[in-house]
């Protein structure tokens, strides 16, 4: 008899002929996620199991963050031949519970002497007799104990929901523009959840932003890496570009021109890091640079898809999501990410592309971008 973790997967189920590819990715990622707590991951009869781990709670915490996992249940694996022992174990597992219960049985071993209704009846009767403070409710029970008869018997009570989504790396790679704010980590999470591998680019405006601000961004990337694994963060020195824009371009266009530079640089970094798309945390209408016209202006300079998964979300919805994935607290640290010294008082909200293009002519775009790329520092997190 031993403690194991039963792992259920979600959408991978829908896959047809390429299902083994998705399953392999999923198992690889579960292995990677638990490498520090130890444990074996194995597949049996279309189920994933984890056994021999050192710390169940930590194992659960890690496995429920693997994209593609739908839910997990801590379970007891024991020999199936002694049905009395199974009943005794079931009663022990139900003893700490209060209220009503029901027994669910599944039998993939059809040669087993008892069929599913018989297992439910027998085990249910035993529990009722031996744990007198519980009563049965088959329609709306407070607790469900599942008994599965496969190569062994598996007993489980708890079912812990996991992150769902698709296994990481099954849907290409994208480059996330990571600021220090609340939105961009959420955007990265949402795309990564669909099985997309991530890399990040961050614009650092020293001395207008501090070392702590940079640390904060790296911490956000690390928090994301708990879901999507090890990744590269490209830290781009951005001060010179901001100063040039500030000096040479009309004030109301500075934010937009800055966004265009960010997108251009991100695209170059994405291509170098073999990513096929960009991700931003923009939400329509949230700030001046996120109006419909402004988004059109920034998209104009990019030749790859730009994903904006927060585009239709309210700030409150984004915050709720950030809290769920655990990035909100770090995002709320008060270090500045985009310096106010460069923020115009009245940014253009309905910019015309041709005017922006004309204003940008004052800058030596190629040289500025080349210098920024040259000075980029790469940090690996996770």
């Amino acid at each position, binding site marked *: 008899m031993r403690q194991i973790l039963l792992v259920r997967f979600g959408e991978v189920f829908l896959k047809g002929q390429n299902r083994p590819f998705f399953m392999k990715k999923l198992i690889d990622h579960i292995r990677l996620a638990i490498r520090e707590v130890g444990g074996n991951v194995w597949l049996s009869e279309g189920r994933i199991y984890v056994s021999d781990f050192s710390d169940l709670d930590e194992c659960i915490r890690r496995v429920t963050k693997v994209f593609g996992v739908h839910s997990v249940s801590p379970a007891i694996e024991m020999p199936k031949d002694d049905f009395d022992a199974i009943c005794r174990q079931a009663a022990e597992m139900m003893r700490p519970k209060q209220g009503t219960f029901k027994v669910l049985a599944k039998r993939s071993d059809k040669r087993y002497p008892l069929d599913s209704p018989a297992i439910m009846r027998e085990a249910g009767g035993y529990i009722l007799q031996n744990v007198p403070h519980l009563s049965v409710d088959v329609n709306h029970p407070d607790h469900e104990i599942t008994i599965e008869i496969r190569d062994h018997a598996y007993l489980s009570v708890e079912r812990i929901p996991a992150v769902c989504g698709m296994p990481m790396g099954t849907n290409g790679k994208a480059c996330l523009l990571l600021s220090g704010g609340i939105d961009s980590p959420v955007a990265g999470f949402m795309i990564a959840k669909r099985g997309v591998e991530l890399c990040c680019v961050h614009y650092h405006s020293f001395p207008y932003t*501090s070392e702590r601000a940079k640390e904060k961004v790296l911490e956000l990337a690390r928090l994301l890496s708990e879901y999507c694994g090890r990744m590269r963060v490209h830290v781009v020195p951005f001060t010179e570009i901001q100063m040039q824009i500030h000096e040479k371009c009309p004030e109301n266009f500075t934010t937009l021109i800055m966004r265009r530079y960010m997108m251009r640089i991100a695209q170059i970094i994405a291509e170098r890091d073999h990513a096929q798309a960009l991700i931003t945390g923009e939400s329509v209408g949230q700030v001046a640079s996120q109006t419909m016209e402004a988004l059109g202006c920034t998209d104009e300079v990019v030749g790859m898809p730009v994903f904006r998964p927060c585009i239709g979300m309210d700030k409150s919805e984004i915050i709720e999501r950030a809290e769920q994935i655990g990035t909100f607290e770090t995002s709320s640290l008060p270090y500045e990410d985009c310096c106010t*010294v460069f923020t115009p008082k009245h940014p253009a909200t309905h910019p015309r592309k041709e005017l922006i293009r004309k204003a940008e002519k004052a800058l030596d775009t190629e040289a500025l971008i080349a210098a920024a790329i040259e000075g980029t520092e790469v940090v690996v997190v996770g």
Partner: protein
Amino acid sequence: MMYFDNSATTRPFDSVIDGMSASMRDGFYNASAAYRPAMDIEKQIHACRQAIIAQTGAKREDEVIFTAGGTESDNLAILGAAAAIRRAGVFLVSSIEHPAVAETMRRVEKMGHEVRIMPINARGVIDLEACERLMDEDTAFISCMQVSNETGAIQPVAELSAMARAKNRSVLVHVDGVQGFMRVPMNMSRMGVDLYALSGHKIHGPKGVGALVVRKGVRLIPQTTGGGQEKGIRSGTYNSPAIIGLHKAIEEMAARQADVEAMRALKLRLYERVSRLDGVKVNGPEPAAADSAPHILSLSFDGVRGEVMRNALEGEGILVSTGSACSSHKQKVSASLRSMGLSETQADGTIRISFGLMNNEQEIDTAAEKMEKLYALLKQYRRR
């Protein structure tokens, strides 16, 4: 790295590190135990008490209560006294106190006492005339820092104490001496101070140790109960390595009083160069004034945010702070600086340079040069 944030903390003297390391290795005994090796530790603690007495003008050894630092000392002084004062009284506190005092006063209010705020003037010094109007025979407790951690302004605690005692003879005077101890003179009996809080790590000693000096006859209700150490006022096993480290720091500071005065020369040397720049202004008393502490210089760089200047200096290997380190996590404009009449942008453009015994003239010249260069560069990019 050139370190100019000595008001946040200081690097311990080698003598402190050696003394503490020896204490942990060989003198680890519980000072309260009955055997001989423990008595040796007790003697070393005794020697530290004597050193504190000599530096504060206290009279008796049992007036020194060892604590875990400045914050605990302030808490014990204020809460211990507030709990001992039976009738609801009036507590006066300056508007520029460190959070260790300011936040603790909120609890005093909840205990049923009245708290009144003593205003400061544009030089960052407490306004004695205005304070006198706040005082009456119900004034039970006065709390005023010895030296402002943000501007280095030395506060007129002796005058304040005399003024309050004229209205109520039994008033208690508490002085937070964390930024003043051993850099600015303190004589508790002469200056009329009843409770004096000090900290080890601001004088090149260890962190996590400090003391509250309590004049004989002042009653405090213990805020920590337990084994009855420190006459029951502050229970807990003596942190002997830290107390020994504190003693070493006091000894070395006392032996190097000339170097303490030399910090003022360093401060003036820096100020003399930087004040020539257009747009630079000192906060608090003129650095050469008698009520300006030797080791703190607060400067406003017009048009450049303090945070940006601080980051840029860090890039050049020079460590300073914006405002004071204790409030810098909140990233709000300093209330103390605002109460001195600085505009929000001026207060926001402030950096604090604080000196220690390990700074030298060469560092000052480099720092001045970098400040000149960076200010010229950064002020071009002010918000339009």
